[in-house]
């Protein structure tokens, strides 16, 4: 007599559509392709959201094209991690790399750069001034997709370089980070 059944396998899948990017996401990507980084400035509190999300979460008001501002393609590394990649199944990274958040000049929100290329790991520190290295115009496509968190600036920017400017003082960062 075989052992009583103790486990049951249940392998199921649910299929989803990749959602259409919102009109604002599409617009943001189009501007990136042209070398422009745009955000929305809240008409009430004045905070600049980049990428623009169509509303200010603090004031809970909608923002539109009339609230558009341009953000510089240079800024400050605020926080970072040096990632030593664990070799799990599916891992593509082998060497250490830096994941960083960058506050671009003119923005109150940061972007996450998943792979900070262009600055030596030992040189990365909070306050470091960096500037974007743009892909050739024909190779730029911005990050789109409403479900995906905006990671960096898509393929429009391929790496970041140190500008050589003095570091941004710590107290300057505190008032911007949202």
């Amino acid at each position, binding site marked *: 007599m075989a052992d009583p059944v103790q486990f049951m396998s249940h392998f*199921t899948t649910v*299929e*989803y*559509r990749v959602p*259409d990017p919102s009109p604002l996401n599409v617009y943001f990507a189009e501007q990136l392709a042209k070398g422009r980084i745009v955000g929305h400035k809240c008409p009430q509190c004045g905070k600049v959201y980049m990428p623009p999300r169509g*509303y200010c979460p603090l004031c*809970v008001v*909608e923002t539109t094209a009339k609230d558009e501002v341009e953000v510089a393609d240079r800024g400050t590394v605020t926080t970072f991690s040096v990632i030593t990649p664990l070799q799990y199944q599916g891992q593509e990274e082998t060497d250490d790399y830096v994941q960083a958040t960058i506050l671009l000049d003119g923005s109150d929100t940061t972007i996450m750069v998943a792979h900070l290329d262009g600055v030596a790991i030992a040189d990365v520190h909070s306050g470091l001034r960096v500037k974007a290295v743009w892909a050739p115009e024909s190779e730029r496509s911005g990050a789109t997709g*409403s479900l995906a968190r905006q990671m960096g600036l898509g393929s429009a920017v391929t790496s970041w370089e140190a500008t050589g400017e003095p570091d941004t003082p710590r107290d300057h960062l505190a008032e911007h980070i949202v």
Partner: protein
Amino acid sequence: MRDIAIVAFAQAPADQPAGQTETLMLLPTITRALADVGLTRRDVGFTCSGSADYLTGGTFTFVQMLEAAGAWPPIPESHVEMDGAWALHEAWVRLQHGDVDVALVFSSGRASLGVSLRETLTFQLDPYYLAPLGADYVSLAALQGEAVMARTGRTERDLAEIVAARTGLDVDKLLAEPYVVAPLRTHDIGPPVDGAAAVVLVAGDRARELCERPAWIAGIDHRADPHYPGVRDLSRSRSTTLAGEKAGVGNGGVEVAELHAVCTPEEIVLADALGLGGDVDVNPSGGGIAANPMMVTGLVRIGEALKQIAGGRSRVLGHASSGPCLQQNLVCVLEGRN
């Protein structure tokens, strides 16, 4: 018990731009519901929302939508992975504590994100006996339809007449359409759509200050039947009958009933379970058969009941349902008092 009233209801318009997020559907909807009674987000003491991660395909996806309610400064907040009607029930309970007078309830859902809602909803089923068979909600509703016709003598013509009365379509033309799962034809099943809605609950005298004709919650209750369809009589809904009794439907009857039926036989089962006579106006809004914004359909029924009170009715019921074959049911009785 504190007297709680529903004072406002707003629903996101059906035509939204492609790729519209639930947050952006909810933001103006919430603003409108509050503004209808001269309130802003600063006046709200508690929020409760309803949504379903299985519709969005992600975990804790409702957290993103909290920004539509104004997550700063933080106030007591809760969430149910259910239709917004249950978020409303929780808000009603929370207001009983006495420290807060205004609650905001909202819910949203993008059924369009899933390739097949019929497949997605099998995830709510018993994982051992039902889910592996892929028994989808339309198939299960069809079995319930067969059951109610067998016991009560209703026919497919009766089902078609529900649709004909609301759409003006010809009954015989409807009956000539092919089945999806017998006895259900495409028109018998509410089309799943994306949606969002918000409701404002206010306690006691504050409700009277804000609104000319508040819809007082005279009773609200929800009950559940056993899950497995084979252990119960699908032609009846004992949980609806019990919820209706506890909500006090019988204490004066109702003039209008907004029932959360997503297919025609469900409307029959529910009306029977609540003992609604021919004098009761059922689903003047069209109900869930007209459109089924999953996770919002039940909240909309209660919102439509509010509209009836605002329009001059005295006693109206809003009903919400969840689970296969009307497994769980919520009944809310609203009164307009002069």
